[in-house]
């Protein structure tokens, strides 16, 4: 294979890997926003918690004074999911009484507090210096295969999360979530403990975001508080989900892959510009992604793959619709 073709192939593998990681996070947001209508603007915070939790447990050393635990990566992923879930539970208990806009304001604050914590608590996170040499699964394999294997690993995680969420969406649980999103008062009148369901959706979604953050940490191998710029990380995930089609799990996978491809392609284009324009081009890209969001919101608010409600069966018992939720 010519070196040029090889380079392109590796570029595509990298593109799909990061796109897949964003797909995990986007699936998490889909549980919160797409299914249940919870307005979370603190995505970057949960993503960072997951990344740090897994990094702290698996890295060989946090800093010269803090030895690492060097636990297996699977333990790191599990801990990341659990840590995000626990934090989401605490925060959710406090803030989920709030409705749409107020929840958005509160969660943007949550993201900010989590960022402050990771930056300031150097005894745990090594502060601004970050954590390096985070192990990557399959990194001992020979050259292209390590990347292929990691991509396959990401694909498996996406597939598992997708499979579980599709099941949940079709189950009575998913129906209650949609009921809460579309008319919470009616859902409550039908006897559903809507607060509990909102909390469940918030915790499950945040756990998936934490898992995504952990996979990200193991891919890039180095994390620092700077890597989780609160606005940009949160924003791009929102653009991905809205573009893909919120409420649709397939949209939550297609959206990130598409947006990430466009995002990277524009980077490719700006690399050809003279160096004195390079920094300006980076800002222009952010402007354009913002503009793209505005166009989607106005012209195609349901996204590329609009939500499709699960088919109703005539036999309520088969659909599990005996009010078991």
């Amino acid at each position, binding site marked *: 294979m010519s070196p040029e073709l090889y380079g392109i192939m590796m570029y595509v593998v990298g593109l799909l890997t990061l796109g897949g990681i964003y797909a995990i996070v986007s699936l998490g947001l889909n549980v919160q926003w797409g299914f249940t209508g919870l*307005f979370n*603007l603190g995505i970057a915070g949960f993503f960072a918690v997951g990344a740090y939790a897994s990094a702290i447990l698996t890295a060989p050393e946090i800093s010269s004074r803090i030895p690492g635990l060097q636990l297996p990566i699977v333990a790191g992923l599990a801990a990341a999911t659990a840590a995000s879930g626990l934090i989401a539970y605490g925060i959710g208990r*406090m*803030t989920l*009484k*709030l*409705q*749409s*806009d*107020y929840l*958005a*304001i*509160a969660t*943007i*604050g*949550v993201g*900010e*507090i989590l960022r*402050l914590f990771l*930056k*300031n608590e150097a005894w745990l996170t090594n502060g601004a210096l970050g954590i390096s040499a985070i192990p990557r699964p399959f990194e001992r394999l020979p050259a292209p295969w390590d990347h292929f294997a990691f991509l396959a690993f990401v694909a498996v995680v996406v597939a598992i999360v997708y499979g579980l969420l599709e099941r949940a969406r079709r189950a009575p649980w998913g129906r209650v979530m949609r009921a809460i999103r579309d008319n919470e008062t009616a859902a409550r009148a039908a006897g559903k403990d809507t607060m509990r369901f909102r909390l469940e959706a918030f915790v499950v979604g945040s756990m998936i975001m934490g898992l995504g953050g952990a996979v990200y940490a193991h891919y890039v191998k180095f994390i620092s508080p700077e890597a989780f710029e*609160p*606005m*940009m990380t949160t*924003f791009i995930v*929102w*653009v991905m989900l*809205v573009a893909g089609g919120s409420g649709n799990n397939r949209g939550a996978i297609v959206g990130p892959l598409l947006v990430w491809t466009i995002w990277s392609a524009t980077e490719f284009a700006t690399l050809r510009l003279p160096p004195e324009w390079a*920094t*300006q081009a980076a*800002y*222009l890209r*952010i*402007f354009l*992604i*913002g*503009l793209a*969001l*505005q166009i989607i*919101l*106005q012209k195609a*608010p349901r996204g590329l793959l609009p939500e499709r409600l699960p088919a109703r069966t005539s036999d309520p018992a088969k659909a599990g619709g005996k009010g078991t939720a």
Partner: protein
Amino acid sequence: MVELINFYLIPGVVLGCIYALGAIGLSLVFGILRFAHFAHGDLLALGAYFALAFSTALSLPAIWALPAAIVATAAAALLVDRLFYRPLRASHSVATVIASFGVALMIRSVIQLVWGPQDYVFESGIRPPVVIGAFRFAERHIYIVAAAAAIIALLHLFLTRTRAGKAMRAMSDEPSLARVSGINTERVVAWTWILAAALLAAGGLFLGLDTQVKPQMGFNLILPMFAAAILGGIGKPYGAIAGGLVVGLAEELATVPIGGVSVVPPSYKSAVAFVILVAMLLWRPTGLFRGRVF
């Protein structure tokens, strides 16, 4: 005691004035257009950059550049509303909130495109403080508080004496009643943006005078401004002023060391606004002055 006033109370009041200027508009936009405007901080940053641009281009002292900055910021706010918020007005407000989040990023990237990522200062060099007895005031702090007070007095005249101001308060208090009584909704919306932008340009200028003008200056203000607006009660401009002062003072005073330990470590200063915000939302979402809840 003197130290407390010099190093915490006065900076707290200055910060509170800046928060108040931002929170008034945020509260009115929330009350009249019914959505949380997440681009408010970045619009303030844009105002600061306009003031900077006019004061360097015309080599004027910063404060004289304010009228031109107000006009430019108001034009920007009206343009953003026309292009990105008005098309979504008919649909549910949540789309507008997402749109405003996108606008925040767009404004910031425009700032970085035009002015670059570096920090600017309005005037370099250190000026001797004004000493009155044991108290030392930074000259700029006196300017900022006096100018903010003057602007708030003008705002009061506008809201109570002009037709547009009265219509605005009516819309914010009782939108459906305002509409049936023949108030032109879109005109009130335009006035709301002009007023909010004018206050933001002033707030941006003052924040730039007090610290630096930098691209992230707006994002850091989002939480304290929302905290102030909610504390004062959504849709209540006077409440937002009180809220701004409370949040500014709370941020500074929470970091006062008492016996070497402060209530809040200085590195967590920006968490103070968040705590106020969540506490208010949970226990008294109407704010201290009985605003609205949507």
